[in-house]
């Protein structure tokens, strides 16, 4: 029986969240012309002529063995982890439109008992997204909404070899294009916008790679909130639901792929200055319902990022 780790959909979801993490932000520009408040980083787009740059690292432990909704004790001594480095840049084209791009570097590692360790390492996928923000949370606007449309671009390696070609979930890149759609709504409760709630929706349509493998299409829905204290510290939390179809090869469903996940995502941000902030966040599984007999899935993940805003100052 093949046990497939559905990490690719997770990577896209993470990338989308990192994309969303441009901001915030960036939405609550009633913050002081610099790195936006925590919630802003999750939602919006840079101001006109401003750049938002960020670098993030994620460690993802994928060692929970799950059958349907039940966690199963793994007797095989299997261990699976992924480390991801993402570099992201966003630019405010004008008051409404911004563009974001990211590139990734990935290392997958799988250990099975005493059999040894397989590693797939290299440049992962890139992603570009055009964002439209008809309304941005600000001094006199309590509601923000942003729509994004983009594409995942398979710029990395998808044919790494470890005696035989590694499985798709061990490759750094998906080797396949995808269309990505995303929307986020934010609401603040005061001019200072210290407290915000947000909701986001995303959908990824995956295409086949050159080995006829197609990762399952996925959509996700998230609800959360953020709070910026009077100190440099900000806090956020989100409940994130994701639904992924089964993977396919040559249009035939791959068993033990796809399913539903519900995760809790807490985050803490620290503003070193107006323009520079660091953030640490995690992903904690609350519930999952995975297709078919057995799948390895997220035990937990932890992410650290640093962000900088180059503001265009008007005079």
């Amino acid at each position, binding site marked *: 029986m093949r046990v497939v780790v559905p990490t690719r959909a997770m990577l896209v979801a993470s990338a989308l969240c990192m994309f969303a993490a441009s901001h915030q932000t960036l939405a609550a*520009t*009633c*913050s*002081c*012309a*610099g790195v936006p408040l925590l919630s802003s980083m999750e939602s919006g787009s840079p*101001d006109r002529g401003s750049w938002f740059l960020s670098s993030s690292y994620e460690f993802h432990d994928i060692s929970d063995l799950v059958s349907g909704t039940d966690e199963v004790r793994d007797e095989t001594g299997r261990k699976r982890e992924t480390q991801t480095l993402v570099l992201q840049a966003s630019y405010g084209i004008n*008051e409404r439109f911004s563009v974001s791009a990211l590139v990734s570097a990935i290392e997958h590692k799988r250990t099975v008992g005493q059999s040894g360790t397989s590693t797939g390492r290299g440049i992962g996928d890139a992603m570009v997204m055009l964002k439209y923000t*008809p*309304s*941005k949370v*600000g*001094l*006199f*606007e309590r*509601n923000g909404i942003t729509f994004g449309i983009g594409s995942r671009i398979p710029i990395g390696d998808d044919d790494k070899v470890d005696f035989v070609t590694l499985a798709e979930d061990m490759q750094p890149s998906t080797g396949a294009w995808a269309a990505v759609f995303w929307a986020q709504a934010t609401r603040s409760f*005061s*001019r*200072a916008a*210290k407290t915000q709630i947000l909701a986001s929706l995303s959908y990824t349509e995956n295409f086949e790679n050159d080995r006829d493998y197609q990762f399952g299409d996925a959509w996700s829905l998230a609800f959360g909130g953020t709070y910026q204290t*009077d100190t*440099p510290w900000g806090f956020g939390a989100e409940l994130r639901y994701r639904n992924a179809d089964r993977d396919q090869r040559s249009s035939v469903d791959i068993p033990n792929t796809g399913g539903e996940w519900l995760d809790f995502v807490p985050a803490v941000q620290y*503003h070193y200055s*107006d323009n520079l902030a660091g953030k640490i966040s995690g992903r904690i599984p609350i519930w999952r319902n995975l297709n078919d007999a057995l799948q390895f899935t997220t035990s937990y993940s932890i992410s650290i990022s640093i962000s900088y805003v180059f*503001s265009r*100052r*008007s*005079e």
Partner: protein
Amino acid sequence: MNKLIILATTSFCVLAYATERGDAAPDFELPELSGNGTVVLADYAGKVVLIDFWASWCAPCRDSLPLLARLHATLADRGFEVLAVNLDEDPDDARRFLLTYPVGYTVLSDQAGHVAESYGLKTMPTSFLVDRRGIVRYVHEGFHATDIEKIRSQILSALQADQSTRTHHH
């Protein structure tokens, strides 16, 4: 859908009418935060005025207010004034802030935010330098400690320019 259209239109209006360099500074009448009556901008005609929008929750304002206070102290005898317009929705937050960061210039309360909206404010803090004729000469968004020298330079330029004009006309 109607609400969305109103939202979009309002946003557009705010953008379309943001006060910029060269514009006449929108007049206003606001209460003093201390409760000692109201202040009208038009009463400052003939002076160079820095209208500084700030709030207690604006972190850079902790740097800007003391530096502007020092600037005002050195230039007040040359016809320079600061009108600090506070945007706290609860004025008591502003009063508590000023206990820690006291200033020697006039502080006004724009609790409803109408004046800030009329100036097209987008970022905090933002300052508008208004010359003796009521024209905006300089707009400064955000604040870092090193910005004070640029602001000082713009104020001195406004004071000297207006002084030269008056001398020439005489």
